[in-house]
């Protein structure tokens, strides 16, 4: 986009250029033109430098590391770490070997976790937003309460959940087992297979207010008249939601679901605070897995390779998602 700009603007600038040259005779012609064309780029230059420094350079360093055998023996002098070519990648995708197998397992756990978390967050967020659309007493208070999980610092909130999920003294088991007698003995939530569900519950609790907030804003833009007209035509509440609310919210949903997906897929804080630096097998999310591969086992090359693979996967999913949703928009 930017590359095509200069040739197009240069001829346009031509005539006015001549005029100004006419007035300021002694001024050399070329620098003047160059200045007119160059100023916007000069203005962009600081931003470009910052962008390079803050985003691109670390990313490129990460990609370079993924081709190196950067272990604890070399962290003092990265340059001396041996080049290993594609070895780190090969090790990560050999799914019949322990490292690859663990990565693949972690990947599927993350996919399932993301689908469930985003799905429930969206569903609860939408339902709440629609219920809160009409004015009633106490609406403002409820809206504020709904946003609390989103406003709380992640660590404080998740640590509270970690206490609540404790097997012996936690609130969850106290309610389920001691009060309601749903379970015959106290289940474990933070170790073993249930830890996956504990993770999903905390994640949904943490992200649905964001969906609620976005959709609530989206709902404000739907004209009242549409509902009134639909009501006159005899449409019930479900039909109104299906035929008016959801289609009108499509642009909001398109972005919302994508953002939720990326956040959830990459979520590190929730599992880290719940389980510490080694998550149970059934809740071994990919972000924690990569953290373990690089920081706990001090194999930064292998961790970087996994990160690059994760980045590629997310890029592909995002591209397909945008293509698919945009195509649907055009079709519609």
């Amino acid at each position, binding site marked *: 986009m930017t590359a095509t700009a200069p040739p197009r603007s240069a001829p346009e600038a031509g005539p006015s250029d001549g005029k100004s040259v006419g007035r300021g005779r002694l001024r050399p012609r070329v620098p003047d033109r160059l*200045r007119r064309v160059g100023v916007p780029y000069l203005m962009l230059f600081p931003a470009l430098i910052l962008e390079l420094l803050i985003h691109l350079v670390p990313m490129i360093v990460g990609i370079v590391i993924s081709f190196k055998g950067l272990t604890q023996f070399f*962290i003092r002098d990265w340059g001396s770490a041996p080049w290993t070519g594609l070895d780190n990648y090969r090790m990560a995708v050999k799914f019949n070997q322990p490292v690859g197998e663990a990565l693949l397992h972690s990947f599927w756990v993350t996919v399932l976790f993301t689908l469930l978390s985003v799905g429930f967050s969206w569903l609860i967020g939408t339902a709440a937003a629609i219920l809160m659309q009409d004015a009633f007493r106490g609406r403002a208070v409820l809206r504020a309460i709904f946003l609390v999980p989103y406003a709380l610092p992640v660590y404080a909130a998740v640590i509270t959940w970690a206490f609540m999920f404790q097997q012996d003294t936690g609130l969850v088991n106290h309610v389920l087992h001691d009060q309601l007698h749903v379970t015959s003995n106290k289940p474990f939530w933070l170790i073993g297979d249930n830890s996956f569900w504990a993770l999903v519950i905390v994640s949904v609790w943490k992200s649905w207010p964001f969906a609620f907030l976005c959709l609530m804003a989206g709902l404000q833009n739907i004209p009242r008249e549409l509902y009134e007209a639909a009501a006159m035509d005899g449409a019930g509440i479900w039909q109104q939601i299906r035929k008016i609310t959801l289609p009108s919210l499509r642009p909001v949903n398109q972005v919302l679901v994508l953002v939720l997906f990326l956040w959830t897929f990459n979520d590190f804080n929730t599992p880290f605070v719940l389980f510490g630096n080694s998550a149970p097998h059934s809740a071994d999310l990919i972000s924690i897995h990569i953290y373990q591969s690089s920081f706990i086992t001090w194999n930064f090359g292998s961790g970087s390779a996994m990160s690059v693979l994760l980045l590629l996967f997310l890029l592909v999913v995002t591209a397909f998602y945008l293509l698919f949703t945009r195509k649907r928009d055009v079709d519609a």
Partner: protein
Amino acid sequence: MRTSSTSSRLLAATALVAALGLTLSACGGGDDDNGSSGSKGKSSSGGTLTYWASNQGTSLDNDKQVLTPELAKFTQQTGIKVKLEVIPWSDLLNRILAAATSGQGPDVLNIGNTWSASLQATGALLPFDDATFAKIGGKDKFAPASIAAAGAAGKDPAAVPLYSMAYGLYYNKKMFADAGIANPPKTWDELVADGKKLTTGGHYGLAVEGGNGSENIHHAFVLAKQRGSDWFDASGKATFDTPNNVAAVKQYVDFIAKDKIAAKGNAEYAQNQTITDFATGKAAMMMWQSAATSIKSHGMNPDQYGVVPVPTQQAGATGDAGVTSMVAGINLAVFKNSKNIDGALKFVNFMTSDAEQKTLNSTYGSLPPVKAAQSDPAFQTPDLKTLASVLGSSAAPLPQVPNEAQFETLVGTAVKDLFADAAAGKDVTTDSVKAALSKAQQQMPAS
């Protein structure tokens, strides 16, 4: 037109200057860091040292209160100021790694002694050769067992011992008397038998910290050692799934799985709930290192419990079979990139002096690794005497290999998962233990 072209020129010039300034400041950033990053610039003039202390007291603030007056003494003696930072255990290793990577770090720092060989391999720590030792009073002032846990065998130690600890079996005297048990157990069979007698009505014979990978490693190491088995062979290659190591891990997990002398909930203990359970009488025994201060903070008095060495397979075993503890402790290291190595060594000398060793170790409830300080009355309480004799005669250092950190993570997590299986009522068999350890071993990097 004229004004607009002037102003656009002005704008262009401003932008250019801004851009240049930005580039300069970006370049300058590095220089700045090098020049002024705390200790380095100043310390070259002999003025200030930066010291990273680990969390030994009941809180970070408590550590600051304990250390600040001692550091003031050092400043008084040498004129060197010390900038103290107490770093929680959860951050310490990452901070050290970051410091090693960037070359920007403290001058002196505490490390967990099991990290010694791993950090030694990074080359970030100053090796203590004979000449260096001479500056801090010689290698011989330290207990040999503690020096053995300060780096790989055959290499100059990467650190010197600062606080020493050892595991002991803590038992509740009243609960033992109530159950009619006259003496604390000397063998594992006795421990299980006693544990079964003590496990009644919501009380348990033993508490274990099953969700804490490092604790799991420490016990698995001792139980394997008693079978004459190690976790790495002579070439540093992992040997996790040998029959003896499998048996060792199974014996430990069986306290919950088969013997049922520890509560299932122990499987998720990772915040020292074991001490709470012991001090509140919920469990009659625990195996812990230097727990006196913590037990007291939970309201249990020293006369209510006893400390004996951890059991062995046969009573009175010696050699490897008689090992009852790892050599636990904290080491003090000098960052090789320090611009003030001489000042740093003076500080190491100060911290390992007899007087400081007495003060600090007695405050923290640990044992002094400096021999001359050990005879101080502060360390003659019955429990510390037991632990000191364990450290002196039946403690062995964890494997001092570069991949020790990976061993702790992989095997520690494997044992934690086995505990989770046991707690969920799944069978823990020799096969399932072997499978878990084999998997951990395959994930070890080749080295």
